[in-house]
């Protein structure tokens, strides 16, 4: 068990180092040693590069924001001059009828892509493909968490 805990520490340190490298930051501590198993290192690299973070659709995010604002307003006394409350009726996406007219970087949207019938792994695969495509276009640079 002790040996496994030590291996687990090395694994954790290597994950930390990879995450820090992709975030453009120096790791807090350099791993004292890499995991001895090259396959283990490779697997950590695959997981670090291959598990994307998904983003909800813009419409969903804004709708929930509006619900939270309404809930927040219900939790406080009303006032006659309330600039934040005015935001409640300003929902520009409500009248657009779809994501296609929202002028934002589509790479940062998940939209309804992960709807029923499209799997999480499939979306991850799409994210992977986009990442690979982006790798060939270094001008986009940086680490992107693709939103399928």
């Amino acid at each position: 068990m002790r040996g496994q805990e030590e291996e687990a520490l090395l694994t954790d340190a290597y994950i930390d180092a990879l995450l820090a490298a992709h975030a453009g930051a120096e790791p807090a501590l350099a791993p004292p040693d890499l995991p001895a198993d090259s396959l283990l290192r490779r697997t950590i690299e695959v997981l670090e590069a291959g598990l994307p973070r998904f983003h909800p659709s813009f419409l969903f995010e804004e709708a929930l924001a509006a619900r939270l604002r309404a809930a927040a307003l219900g939790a406080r006394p009303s006032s006659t001059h309330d600039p934040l409350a005015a935001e409640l009726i300003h929902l520009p996406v409500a009248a657009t009828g779809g994501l296609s007219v929202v002028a934002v970087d589509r790479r940062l949207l998940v939209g309804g892509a992960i709807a029923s019938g499209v799997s999480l792994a499939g979306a991850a695969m799409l994210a992977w493909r986009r990442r690979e495509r982006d790798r060939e276009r270094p001008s986009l640079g940086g680490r992107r968490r693709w939103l399928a």
Partner: protein
Amino acid sequence: MLRRGKEQAEGRLVQFDADRPAVEAAKRDARRFEALYRKYVAQVYSFALYETRDHHSAQDVTSLVFLRALSGLHGFREQAQPPDSSFRVWLFQIARNTLSNERRRERRHPEAPLDLAAHFPAKQDVEQTAVSRDELVRAWQVIEELPPDRRRALVLRFVEEMSAAEIGAVLGRSEGAVRVLIHRAVRSVAQHLGHRSD
């Protein structure tokens, strides 16, 4: 998530929650909760999506988590020992509990996602890429089969980029136990990638 600041009076390092100003502002005025929501909505949604594998369920869970967090914000107390004090940890604890309740209620069965992975054929020469499509597909096959705690720890570590200590606080396990969980999960994937035996 956590940052260090100097406590000048005592000349020692203390840790405090990076979200403390936003949390305190939201406690004073609930409308300020939106800043916390915007910061964490993708993380919570993503965690829920990995757990439920269903877009609509993930949205439902995300809604419940933030509505519960807003209503319970005054009960959130930063503890003396980070990362348990972290707002993010608290939020993910709500998410974990919400997901458990949803699972009990719905008993939803995940679809078979890996069949659909084939719908995205790679046209370029994947051998030239850092992470090959084949590796990713095989990794996914194992992740799908991992025991829930291992899969959860893996997602929190790699996707949410939480520390082992934070994950421990979310899952109710010790930091060391989380490291071992993650190590075992990674080894399971490694065995599948390399057909390696321990």
